Protein backbone atom coordinates (compact mmCIF):
# COMPACT_ATOMS: atom_id res chain seq x y z
CA UNK A 1 0.00 0.00 0.00
CA UNK A 2 1.44 3.35 -0.99
CA UNK A 3 1.60 6.29 1.45
CA UNK A 4 -1.16 8.10 -0.45
CA UNK A 5 -3.45 5.10 -0.07
CA UNK A 6 -2.72 4.93 3.65
CA UNK A 7 -3.70 8.59 4.04
CA UNK A 8 -6.83 8.13 1.94
CA UNK A 9 -7.91 5.05 3.92
CA UNK A 10 -7.46 6.85 7.26
CA UNK A 11 -9.45 9.73 5.82
CA UNK A 12 -12.20 7.43 4.51
CA UNK A 13 -12.50 5.79 7.94
CA UNK A 14 -12.65 9.19 9.64
CA UNK A 15 -15.36 10.30 7.20
CA UNK A 16 -17.37 7.12 7.79
CA UNK A 17 -17.19 7.48 11.58
CA UNK A 18 -18.30 11.12 11.36
CA UNK A 19 -21.09 10.23 8.96
CA UNK A 20 -22.33 7.37 11.13
CA UNK A 21 -22.44 9.69 14.14
CA UNK A 22 -24.17 12.47 12.22
CA UNK A 23 -26.97 10.21 10.98
CA UNK A 24 -27.51 8.01 14.04
CA UNK A 25 -27.11 10.21 17.14
CA UNK A 26 -30.16 12.17 18.23
CA UNK A 27 -28.46 15.10 19.95
CA UNK A 28 -27.98 18.16 17.69
CA UNK A 29 -24.51 19.03 18.99
CA UNK A 30 -23.26 15.51 18.22
CA UNK A 31 -24.48 15.90 14.65
CA UNK A 32 -22.36 19.05 14.41
CA UNK A 33 -19.35 17.17 15.83
CA UNK A 34 -19.86 14.52 13.17
CA UNK A 35 -19.91 17.18 10.46
CA UNK A 36 -16.66 18.63 11.81
CA UNK A 37 -15.06 15.17 11.68
CA UNK A 38 -16.18 14.78 8.06
CA UNK A 39 -14.69 18.18 7.18
CA UNK A 40 -11.43 17.12 8.86
CA UNK A 41 -11.38 13.99 6.72
CA UNK A 42 -11.79 16.14 3.60
CA UNK A 43 -8.93 18.38 4.73
CA UNK A 44 -6.74 15.31 5.28
CA UNK A 45 -7.51 14.26 1.70
CA UNK A 46 -6.57 17.70 0.37
CA UNK A 47 -3.25 17.69 2.22
CA UNK A 48 -2.50 14.10 1.18
CA UNK A 49 -3.13 14.87 -2.49
CA UNK A 50 -1.02 18.01 -2.20
CA UNK A 51 1.86 16.07 -0.65
CA UNK A 52 1.83 13.04 -2.95
CA UNK A 53 0.24 14.42 -6.10
CA UNK A 54 1.67 16.29 -9.05
CA UNK A 55 3.17 19.79 -8.68
CA UNK A 56 3.29 20.11 -4.90
CA UNK A 57 5.35 23.30 -5.28
CA UNK A 58 2.22 25.15 -6.46
CA UNK A 59 0.69 24.71 -2.95
CA UNK A 60 -2.84 24.40 -4.35
CA UNK A 61 -4.17 21.74 -1.97
CA UNK A 62 -2.45 23.46 0.93
CA UNK A 63 -4.22 26.79 0.32
CA UNK A 64 -7.49 24.95 -0.33
CA UNK A 65 -7.23 23.24 3.06
CA UNK A 66 -6.66 26.62 4.74
CA UNK A 67 -9.80 28.12 3.14
CA UNK A 68 -11.78 25.00 3.98
CA UNK A 69 -10.81 25.36 7.64
CA UNK A 70 -11.92 29.00 7.68
CA UNK A 71 -15.29 28.01 6.25
CA UNK A 72 -15.57 25.17 8.79
CA UNK A 73 -15.11 27.70 11.57
CA UNK A 74 -17.91 29.87 10.15
CA UNK A 75 -20.15 26.80 9.80
CA UNK A 76 -19.53 25.73 13.40
CA UNK A 77 -20.35 29.20 14.75
CA UNK A 78 -23.65 29.44 12.85
CA UNK A 79 -24.58 25.81 13.58
CA UNK A 80 -24.05 26.12 17.31
CA UNK A 81 -25.98 29.40 17.36
CA UNK A 82 -28.86 27.56 15.66
CA UNK A 83 -28.70 24.77 18.25
CA UNK A 84 -28.84 27.31 21.08
CA UNK A 85 -31.75 29.15 19.43
CA UNK A 86 -33.70 25.88 18.94
CA UNK A 87 -33.03 24.88 22.54
CA UNK A 88 -34.27 28.23 23.80
CA UNK A 89 -37.38 28.02 21.64
CA UNK A 90 -38.38 24.37 22.07
CA UNK A 91 -36.56 23.45 25.32
CA UNK A 92 -34.98 20.43 23.67
CA UNK A 93 -31.99 19.57 21.52
CA UNK A 94 -33.24 16.10 20.67
CA UNK A 95 -33.53 15.92 16.90
CA UNK A 96 -36.37 13.38 17.03
CA UNK A 97 -38.55 15.99 18.75
CA UNK A 98 -37.73 18.91 16.44
CA UNK A 99 -40.03 18.07 13.55
CA UNK A 100 -41.73 21.21 12.38
CA UNK A 101 -40.51 24.34 10.68
CA UNK A 102 -43.30 26.44 12.18
CA UNK A 103 -42.22 28.51 15.17
Amino acid at each position, binding site marked *: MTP*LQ*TCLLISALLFSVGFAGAVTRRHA*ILVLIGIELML*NAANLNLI*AFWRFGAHPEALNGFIFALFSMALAAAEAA*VGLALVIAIYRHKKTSNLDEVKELKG
Partner: protein
Amino acid sequence: MSPFFIITGIVTLLGAVFAMSLRNLVHCALAMAIAFAGVAALFLQLGAEFVGFAQILIYIGAIAILIVFAILLTRSGESPDKSVLTSGWWAGIAVTAMVFTILGWAVLSSSAVPKELPAAPAASVKNVGDLLMTKYVLPLEIVALVLTAAMIGAVLIALKEDNKDNAGGQP
Protein backbone atom coordinates in the same frame (compact mmCIF):
# COMPACT_ATOMS: atom_id res chain seq x y z
CA MET B 1 4.87 5.03 5.62
CA SER B 2 6.37 5.22 9.06
CA PRO B 3 4.77 3.23 11.88
CA PHE B 4 4.40 6.48 13.81
CA PHE B 5 2.05 7.75 11.10
CA ILE B 6 -0.08 4.60 11.40
CA ILE B 7 -0.20 4.95 15.20
CA THR B 8 -1.27 8.59 14.89
CA GLY B 9 -3.98 7.56 12.48
CA ILE B 10 -5.24 4.86 14.85
CA VAL B 11 -5.32 7.33 17.77
CA THR B 12 -7.25 9.79 15.59
CA LEU B 13 -9.78 7.15 14.60
CA LEU B 14 -10.20 5.97 18.19
CA GLY B 15 -10.86 9.54 19.26
CA ALA B 16 -13.44 9.91 16.50
CA VAL B 17 -15.16 6.63 17.43
CA PHE B 18 -15.35 7.63 21.10
CA ALA B 19 -16.58 11.11 20.16
CA MET B 20 -19.45 9.51 18.26
CA SER B 21 -20.32 6.70 20.68
CA LEU B 22 -19.98 7.94 24.28
CA ARG B 23 -23.16 8.84 26.14
CA ASN B 24 -21.99 11.90 28.06
CA LEU B 25 -21.65 14.92 25.78
CA VAL B 26 -18.72 16.45 27.66
CA HIS B 27 -16.76 13.22 27.19
CA CYS B 28 -17.72 13.34 23.51
CA ALA B 29 -16.27 16.84 23.20
CA LEU B 30 -13.04 15.69 24.88
CA ALA B 31 -12.70 12.72 22.52
CA MET B 32 -13.38 15.08 19.61
CA ALA B 33 -10.48 17.29 20.73
CA ILE B 34 -8.24 14.19 20.74
CA ALA B 35 -9.35 13.38 17.19
CA PHE B 36 -8.63 16.97 16.06
CA ALA B 37 -5.17 16.82 17.68
CA GLY B 38 -4.51 13.54 15.87
CA VAL B 39 -5.46 15.11 12.53
CA ALA B 40 -3.11 18.02 13.32
CA ALA B 41 -0.30 15.52 14.02
CA LEU B 42 -1.03 13.84 10.67
CA PHE B 43 -0.79 17.23 8.94
CA LEU B 44 2.56 17.90 10.63
CA GLN B 45 3.91 14.51 9.54
CA LEU B 46 2.78 15.15 5.95
CA GLY B 47 4.91 18.31 5.86
CA ALA B 48 2.05 20.82 6.14
CA GLU B 49 3.30 22.65 9.23
CA PHE B 50 1.22 25.78 8.73
CA VAL B 51 -2.03 23.88 8.27
CA GLY B 52 -1.18 21.68 11.25
CA PHE B 53 -0.70 24.63 13.59
CA ALA B 54 -3.75 26.37 12.15
CA GLN B 55 -5.69 23.17 12.86
CA ILE B 56 -4.56 23.23 16.49
CA LEU B 57 -5.46 26.92 16.85
CA ILE B 58 -8.83 26.79 15.07
CA TYR B 59 -10.19 23.36 15.96
CA ILE B 60 -8.79 22.65 19.42
CA GLY B 61 -8.60 26.30 20.45
CA ALA B 62 -11.86 27.64 19.07
CA ILE B 63 -14.31 25.02 17.84
CA ALA B 64 -13.86 22.61 20.79
CA ILE B 65 -14.37 25.47 23.26
CA LEU B 66 -17.41 26.64 21.26
CA ILE B 67 -18.93 23.16 21.40
CA VAL B 68 -18.31 22.89 25.16
CA PHE B 69 -20.04 26.25 25.60
CA ALA B 70 -22.99 25.07 23.52
CA ILE B 71 -23.22 21.87 25.61
CA LEU B 72 -23.29 23.91 28.81
CA LEU B 73 -25.77 26.48 27.44
CA THR B 74 -28.22 23.78 26.37
CA ARG B 75 -27.83 22.00 29.75
CA SER B 76 -27.07 18.65 28.13
CA GLY B 77 -23.93 17.85 30.10
CA GLU B 78 -25.41 14.94 32.03
CA SER B 79 -25.95 11.53 30.47
CA PRO B 80 -29.45 10.92 29.13
CA ASP B 81 -31.43 8.02 30.53
CA LYS B 82 -33.13 7.29 27.23
CA SER B 83 -31.53 5.91 24.10
CA VAL B 84 -29.01 8.21 22.43
CA LEU B 85 -29.67 6.88 18.92
CA THR B 86 -32.33 8.07 16.52
CA SER B 87 -35.26 5.84 15.67
CA GLY B 88 -33.91 4.85 12.25
CA TRP B 89 -30.31 4.28 13.28
CA TRP B 90 -29.93 0.93 11.50
CA ALA B 91 -30.55 2.64 8.14
CA GLY B 92 -27.80 5.15 8.94
CA ILE B 93 -25.38 2.33 9.79
CA ALA B 94 -26.25 0.58 6.52
CA VAL B 95 -25.66 3.73 4.46
CA THR B 96 -22.37 4.30 6.31
CA ALA B 97 -21.20 0.77 5.55
CA MET B 98 -22.05 1.27 1.88
CA VAL B 99 -20.20 4.62 1.76
CA PHE B 100 -17.11 3.15 3.38
CA THR B 101 -17.15 0.10 1.12
CA ILE B 102 -17.29 2.27 -2.00
CA LEU B 103 -14.59 4.67 -0.72
CA GLY B 104 -12.26 1.84 0.30
CA TRP B 105 -12.76 0.01 -2.99
CA ALA B 106 -12.07 3.20 -4.96
CA VAL B 107 -8.91 3.96 -2.95
CA LEU B 108 -7.48 0.45 -3.09
CA SER B 109 -8.26 -0.30 -6.73
CA SER B 110 -7.35 3.05 -8.26
CA SER B 111 -4.53 3.11 -10.79
CA ALA B 112 -4.00 6.86 -10.46
CA VAL B 113 -1.92 6.50 -7.28
CA PRO B 114 1.77 7.38 -7.69
CA LYS B 115 4.02 4.54 -6.66
CA GLU B 116 7.09 6.44 -5.45
CA LEU B 117 7.27 9.09 -2.76
CA PRO B 118 8.01 12.52 -4.26
CA ALA B 119 10.43 14.87 -2.54
CA ALA B 120 8.93 16.88 0.29
CA PRO B 121 7.75 20.22 -1.12
CA ALA B 122 8.74 23.48 0.50
CA ALA B 123 5.68 24.93 2.21
CA SER B 124 7.30 27.66 4.24
CA VAL B 125 5.14 30.32 5.79
CA LYS B 126 6.78 32.84 3.45
CA ASN B 127 5.62 30.93 0.35
CA VAL B 128 2.10 30.57 1.76
CA GLY B 129 1.93 34.27 2.62
CA ASP B 130 3.21 35.26 -0.83
CA LEU B 131 0.54 33.13 -2.50
CA LEU B 132 -2.23 34.39 -0.21
CA MET B 133 -1.32 37.99 -0.96
CA THR B 134 -0.88 37.62 -4.74
CA LYS B 135 -2.66 34.75 -6.46
CA TYR B 136 -5.30 34.05 -3.80
CA VAL B 137 -5.98 37.57 -2.58
CA LEU B 138 -9.58 37.63 -3.85
CA PRO B 139 -10.58 34.35 -2.10
CA LEU B 140 -8.87 35.65 1.03
CA GLU B 141 -11.00 38.80 1.00
CA ILE B 142 -14.15 36.77 0.35
CA VAL B 143 -13.33 34.49 3.29
CA ALA B 144 -12.94 37.59 5.47
CA LEU B 145 -16.39 38.73 4.33
CA VAL B 146 -17.88 35.26 4.97
CA LEU B 147 -16.40 35.14 8.47
CA THR B 148 -17.76 38.58 9.30
CA ALA B 149 -21.21 37.64 7.99
CA ALA B 150 -21.13 34.36 9.92
CA MET B 151 -20.15 36.13 13.12
CA ILE B 152 -22.95 38.70 12.80
CA GLY B 153 -25.40 35.96 11.82
CA ALA B 154 -24.44 33.76 14.78
CA VAL B 155 -24.90 36.66 17.20
CA LEU B 156 -28.26 37.56 15.66
CA ILE B 157 -29.53 33.95 15.72
CA ALA B 158 -28.45 33.29 19.29
CA LEU B 159 -29.64 36.68 20.51
CA LYS B 160 -32.33 36.60 23.15
CA GLU B 161 -35.72 37.06 21.53
CA ASP B 162 -37.59 40.23 22.31
CA ASN B 163 -40.34 39.13 24.73
CA LYS B 164 -42.92 41.81 24.08
CA ASP B 165 -45.30 39.51 22.22
CA ASN B 166 -45.08 36.29 24.23
CA ALA B 167 -47.22 36.42 27.32
CA GLY B 168 -46.54 32.78 28.19
CA GLY B 169 -43.56 33.63 30.32
CA GLN B 170 -41.08 32.48 27.72
CA PRO B 171 -37.57 33.76 28.38
